[in-house]
């Protein structure tokens, strides 16, 4: 206590140094690199201005990665949020009658969240295997033709989206369940006294508006996570076939660490980062606006 500055330094120094060194410095560096043509291992680099961004947004390949990511998000966000809500509503009402079964089902739905995604992707690969997999076997038993789930350019992105939904539903369900249990029971009583008869009316009068903040949160978290899709792409398709499943983070990895184009990969990083910041800005704006009801 005789030298408070030393105490402070001891307490705060290591963490502050780590945050500066491993978060703020790299962010600054990435923003600089994005305007250069630096190649990993090259002795020098030149300033190229917006060229990297022009290449990303202007080339077919760059746009392809962005569009794939958006298509993937456009499927996974509504499906996993919608299914998460439906499952949560079902389990919430089941919990009052059959609490054990509800708990068991909740465990099952959450399992993919806790599991190692790469290992599960390998299992999915086996499940979707054209000849040895269960899915095509069952499809042909139903008289339907099997698909090349991971090698057909027209299907592969949807297959990845399906796995993304499979992985995310349980997480969203847990968030919705927390939101549901926070709704005061007296509001349902009030709605009943006010004349709300069926489950449908109760849902639109109380449940849906009261879940507003939760829904916004779930949407933003899901969006942020779908933009980051990487593990399944890297494990199952490596962006292929013919870049049909190339996504923004996978492109970042490929350009930066397979082709060593650090400058171009940094530009991808900056665009990716900007998209996430935009999401956060939307979230803050909407919360300020109305969802908190104040």
């Amino acid at each position: 206590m005789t030298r408070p500055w030393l105490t402070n330094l001891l307490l705060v120094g290591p963490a502050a140094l780590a945050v500066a060194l491993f978060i703020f410095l790299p962010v600054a560096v990435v923003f600089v690199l994005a305007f250069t043509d630096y190649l990993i291992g090259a002795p020098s680099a030149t300033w190229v201005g917006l060229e990297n961004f022009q290449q990303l947004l202007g080339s077919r390949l760059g746009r392809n990665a962005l569009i794939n990511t958006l298509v993937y998000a456009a499927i996974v966000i509504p499906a996993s949020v919608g299914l998460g809500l439906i499952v949560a509503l079902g389990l919430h009402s089941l919990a009052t009658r059959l609490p054990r079964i509800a708990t068991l089902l909740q465990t099952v739905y959450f399992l993919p969240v806790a599991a190692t995604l790469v290992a599960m992707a390998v299992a999915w690969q086996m499940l979707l295997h054209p000849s040895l997999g269960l899915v095509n076997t069952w499809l042909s038993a139903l008289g339907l033709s099997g698909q090349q789930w991971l090698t057909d350019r027209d299907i592969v992105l949807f297959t990845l989206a399906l796995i993304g939904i499979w992985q995310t539903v349980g997480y969203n369900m847990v968030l919705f369940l927390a939101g549901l249990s926070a709704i005061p029971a007296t509001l349902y009583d009030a709605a009943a006294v006010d004349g709300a008869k069926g489950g449908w009316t109760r849902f639109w009068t109380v449940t849906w508006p009261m879940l507003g903040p939760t829904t916004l949160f779930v949407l933003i978290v899901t969006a942020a996570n779908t933009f980051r899709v990487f593990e399944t792409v890297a494990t199952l398709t490596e962006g292929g076939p013919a870049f049909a499943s190339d996504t923004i983070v996978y492109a970042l990895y490929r350009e930066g660490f397979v082709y060593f184009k650090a400058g171009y990969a940094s530009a991808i990083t900056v665009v990716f980062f900007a998209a996430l910041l935009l999401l956060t800005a939307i979230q803050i704006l909407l919360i300020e606006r109305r969802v908190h009801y104040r």
Partner: protein
Amino acid sequence: MTPARLLSLGLLSLGAAMVLLPFVWMVSVSLKPHAEIFTTDVRLLPRSFTLQNYWHALTETAIPRYLMNGAIVTGGILALQLLVTVPCAYALAHRTFPGRQVLFGSVVAALLVPFHVTAIPIFLGLAWVGWLNTYTALILPFIATAFGLFLLRQAFAQIPGELVDAARVDGMSEMGIAWRIAFPLGLPTVIAFSIFSVTAHWNDLFWPLIATTDSALATPPRGILFFRDEESGDDVGPLMAGATLITAPLILGFLLAQKRFTQGLASTGLKR
């Protein structure tokens, strides 16, 4: 039970079965003998069980090595994260010092930065000092955890200031207060953060794929890909056994401490 309730229970169970399918299939294939996997008569459950695939995965592949690497890397990351984060979070919550506001503001700002954004410069930095392809490369970048700092600061701020003052009056050092007062009182949050940290880094593929090329250093997800790419489709049984083995630790942890796990992953939802 009304028909509507029965229908909803039926649909929920059907959904759960679909969620479970990849798990069932993974375990099922891992228990099938080689000949049964490679037939045209594909079935969900094995007709005859064998543990041969697990024996193969444990004795003739590097799976045990990957599991050990996973333990070293996640353990190392968590230990170092706590070591630097706990004192700093305590100071942010219960001490005034010049720059505290700036530091806390920086932590909140850093929350917005996903690891992917910092990967290229960190890779370049580690290459420059020659630390690529080491455990250090896998562990060091994650010591800085804005998320941990934020979460623990919020938890420590709940501890009454009078309690901290009482400890000071009793002659405890500041570092002592951080570890012997704040740490145990904030334990639920520490555990939630630990579950989040271990899960995130055990499952991470992005950074191990970048920072290491040496298969002796591979963490479980990286390792299972090495394994898959080597055996090139002939050893599906051991591959599924390996996948089961590397998923098992977290799944078991989840099943044993479900509430904490769910809370740990859900309350930390800001950042996943």
